[in-house]
């Protein structure tokens, strides 16, 4: 393709898109996850990789949402739950299962 600076073989993933765009062909590089997360200020600057606290591993970076609202923005309340992490909260507080029954269910391995 004429117009590629130095010809196709001299182009790189990062150099080609601007040249391509200048020639009227929109393009953007396909980045590795590491490049996507830390290799460009754009996505961390958009708060796409917030940190949450995981009950077992401590702090971990996860994906945020790719949009922001001016008045009522999203926030990550907590990291992803462990299996059944909130059994007691849901069964006890929301469904009114008694403490003694929760203890029995725990002893039986149900919870």
């Amino acid at each position, binding site marked *: 393709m004429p117009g590629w600076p130095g010809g196709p073989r001299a182009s790189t993933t990062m150099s080609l898109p601007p040249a391509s765009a200048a020639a009227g062909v929109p393009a953007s590089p396909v980045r590795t996850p590491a490049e996507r997360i830390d290799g460009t200020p754009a996505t961390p600057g958009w708060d796409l990789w917030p940190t*949450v606290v*995981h009950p*077992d*591993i401590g702090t*971990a970076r*996860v*994906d*945020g*949402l790719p949009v922001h*609202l001016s*008045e*009522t*923005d*999203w*926030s*990550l*309340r*907590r*990291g*992803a*739950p*462990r*299996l*059944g*992490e*909130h*059994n007691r*909260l*849901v*069964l006890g507080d*929301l*469904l009114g299962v008694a403490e003694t029954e929760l203890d029995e269910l725990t002893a039986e391995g149900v*919870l």
Partner: protein
Amino acid sequence: MSGALDGLRVLEIAGQYTAYPSKVLADMGADTIVIEPPGGAATRVLGPFADDRPGPEESLHWRHYNTSKRSVVLDLTDEADRARLRRLLVDCDVLLEGLPERDLTGLGLTPEGMATAFPSLRLGFGDPVRATRRAAGQPDHRSHSAGRRRPGAQLRV
């Protein structure tokens, strides 16, 4: 800053296609509970895994798609736990599920029946095939064997 969906109550029956919409609602402030079967949601087997150690708590797929949610284990093949689900549904605003229709019927949770039993409930289909068929007015003819290959569609009643 308060979330746009503060106060909204969401239940998700864990599935492959319900996970992200449920995460969005949860991150936007909705009080969101994901219901997992004993042994954990099928998507917990999806990698990659933290430190390359496969395990239900190490699935990065799970960690990404389930932020801001709470997890409760209910065995929906058991009537006592189905009764617990129905009680949760009474105070619930949105249910997200992606079960095959015949499994829903087995649970006594047909969309029509739920609209009557839980009039305030809004239903979301976490299954693109079923949602498309319903939108087109077609019944769900997917077989159990077809469903079995997909995580999140493994419930048998």
